[in-house]
């Protein structure tokens, strides 16, 4: 029973050791976290501001939910329409654009649909649909998924009827890329996740550069009028930092394999 | 409670025990009874009878392990108080998964005695009963005779007013049987009332001060031992004493 006593003591210790000052919670999208940029930004934020930003890495849909419930202090996501609705509904205090990256079309290196030579993103998708090559979708209501659905719409392809070649993974970017790699299928991914992805297999980057593929990230503080417990001061300090020259330098300078991933575009207020 | 273990303060005796029309049933089927019987303040009562005559059920009913379906089992004091002053030795020893010392000490611990003191008392009893060398051995690994001795020590350690024994020597050899009988006689001399079921006619003759003869779930005959063995009143008892089959 000595073991039991020790266990009980541990229980109390673990409950006691939780409170620490200067922490705030930020819900971010998987794509942002998978890019590795957070590993560069967070230590600098801690050094400059003394704030420990705790990241909750989720899809845009869940990030918005966490914000609505007041379980995080701010969110950093990329789905403009949803963000504006979030602010309009009073959940977010405001929306501040920080930076953008871009989406890329990934597929088998052999490129059976020949999208490498496509003139536009929607044309590339049409070619995949016409040749009925396998395409894996996130299927999880994330920002990336919403972007992809917009692209299909613009391409005039009805994916609901296309169950022979259109597959919904219902999971995050990494898991979806794993699925695509396993099926040797086409997939839409953000450039950062793709570059950091370790299980590329036969997949290759086939199409990029169409301006419709640009992906804007925005910072949304949670409305303190709705959730009085949010750490307004820390959130404001973080927002100032994210839009500062120091952040601009880090974000623009972040490269994987020599490629720039993010472009800083915050405007001073 | 603890005080009663060290010395018997003047408190009301729990005896006599009176059974009045007491019946035991299993799923509505009559098993034993109706039994009218009085267990007086002193002596050693031997319960005899063929297999299935209801000896065990009778003992269990007196001890409170078998529900009394009809009639009454009454102690001299309220039943609740009487419960803690009885002990029972089962035919198949129930060995707790503990060491011998802790098994014997268990009833004292239940009665609120400190662990160290209870263990010291248990060792004394173990010595006395011939288990002194086995103190630290796991009780379930003892031999049959040792297990029965342990049961006896565990039953006697809290100085019960009455001790029920259900064929405690059924599976033992002559030597172990004699050792146990010696312990029983000592307990009897110390003022513990004994009620024992047995098959062993020799043992019954050696120990009994009075006899209850069970037959077909009923008390067929009862009385002082001497009279019973010399001149039983019923044909069945006479046959049983002679060792003939009683149908």
């Amino acid at each position: 029973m000595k073991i039991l006593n020790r266990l009980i003591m541990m229980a109390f210790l673990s409950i006691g050791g939780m409170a620490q000052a200067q922490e705030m919670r930020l819900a971010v999208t998987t794509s942002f976290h998978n890019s590795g940029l957070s590993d560069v930004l967070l230590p600098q934020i801690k050094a400059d501001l003394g704030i420990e930003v705790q990241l909750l890495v989720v899809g845009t849909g869940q990030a918005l939910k966490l914000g609505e419930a007041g379980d995080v202090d701010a969110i950093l996501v990329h789905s403009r329409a949803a963000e504006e609705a979030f602010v309009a509904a009073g959940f977010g205090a405001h929306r501040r654009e920080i930076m953008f990256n871009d989406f890329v079309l990934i597929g088998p290196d052999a490129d059976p649909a020949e999208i490498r030579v496509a003139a536009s993103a929607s044309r590339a998708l049409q070619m995949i649909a016409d040749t009925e090559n396998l395409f894996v979708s996130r299927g999880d209501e994330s920002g990336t998924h919403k972007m992809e659905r917009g692209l299909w719409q613009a391409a005039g392809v009805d994916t609901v009827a296309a169950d022979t070649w259109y597959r919904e993974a219902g999971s995050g970017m990494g898991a979806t890329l794993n699925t695509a790699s396993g099926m040797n299928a086409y997939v839409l991914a953000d450039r950062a996740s793709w570059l950091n992805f370790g299980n590329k297999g036969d997949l290759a980057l086939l199409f990029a550069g169409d301006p419709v593929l640009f992906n804007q990230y925005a910072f949304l503080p949670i409305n303190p009028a709705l959730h009085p417990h949010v750490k307004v001061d820390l959130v404001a300090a973080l927002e100032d930092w994210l839009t500062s020259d120091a952040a601009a330098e880090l974000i623009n300078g972040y490269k994987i394999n020599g490629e720039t991933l993010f472009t800083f575009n915050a405007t001073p207020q | 409670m603890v005080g009663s273990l060290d010395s018997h303060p003047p408190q009301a005796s729990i005896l006599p025990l009176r059974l009045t029309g007491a019946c035991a049933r299993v799923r509505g089927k009559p098993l034993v009874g109706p039994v009218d019987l009085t267990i007086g303040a002193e002596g050693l009562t031997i319960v005899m009878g063929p297999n299935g005559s209801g000896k065990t059920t009778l003992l269990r009913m007196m001890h409170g392990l078998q529900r009394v379906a009809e009639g009454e089992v009454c102690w001299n004091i309220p039943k609740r108080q009487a419960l803690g002053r009885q002990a029972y030795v089962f035919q198949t020893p129930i060995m707790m998964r503990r060491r011998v010392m802790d098994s014997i000490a268990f009833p004292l611990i239940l009665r609120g005695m400190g662990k160290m003191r209870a263990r010291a008392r248990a060792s004394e009893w173990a010595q006395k009963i011939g288990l002194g060398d086995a103190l630290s051995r796991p009780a379930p690994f003892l031999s049959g005779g040792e297990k029965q001795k342990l049961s006896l020590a565990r039953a006697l350690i809290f100085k019960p007013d009455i001790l029920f024994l259900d064929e405690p020597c059924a599976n033992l050899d002559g030597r172990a049987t004699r050792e146990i009988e010696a312990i029983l006689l000592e307990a009897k001399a110390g003022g513990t009332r004994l009620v024992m079921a047995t098959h062993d006619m020799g043992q019954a003759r050696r120990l009994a001060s009075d006899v209850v003869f069970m037959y077909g779930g009923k008390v067929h005959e009862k009385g002082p031992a001497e009279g019973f063995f010399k001149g039983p009143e019923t044909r069945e008892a006479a046959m049983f004493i002679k060792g003939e089959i009683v149908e």
Partner: protein
Amino acid sequence: MNELAQGLLDAWKLIFTLDRDLLEIVGLSLRVTLTAVAIASLIGLPLGAWLVVNRFRYRRATIAVLNALMGLPPVVVGLVVYLLLSRSGPFGVFGLLFTPAAMIIAQVIIITPMIASISHQVIRDLWADYHDLLLSLNASRWQRIKALLWDGRRALLTAMLAGFGRGIGEVGAIMIVGGNIDHNTRVLTTAISLETGKGNFAFAIGLGLVLIALAVSVNLIIHSLSKTERASNW
């Protein structure tokens, strides 16, 4: 299969360099699950014994429910705990969501039915042995439960270890209520899930091997501490 080999290599590297992040993750995994097992045992063991010793009207139903609850899907538990602890939920004011405490709560809910159910089965057998003796010695209800728990402790340890196994390998619930926050609520399973998501299979396998090694060593340590498998000690 290359990934498995690489994973083994990564695991060795992580363990032998005593990687700080790894130690932190292992430490939190242990802290969360051991605490949950301790609390679940404090509830589950007496509950299992109590269900054996007491006869009451809905006893059978309670036991059936308990057995069914053993199969609770962790994801559902996580979701429910999340909704309860969320700032918008009934216990939101405590601010427990995304903390180790929330993870402990979720795991207690997952583990307790398991410990209670296994201990109920273990103690039922012991009670069949002890029933007459404990009644004869006039043991109170609580004394009966205590004696059964104490004498059944070897088998009950197995129940606790089963609970530990379920807790340490569980990802669905703690991912939701813990949030897998780096340096804060990241444990082995959520880290494995994260690395798998990044396609870092080798590293994920490495962490998986650490997890298995951890589960095995905890079992061994507890067994040797309690000196089971040694007949001479009771």
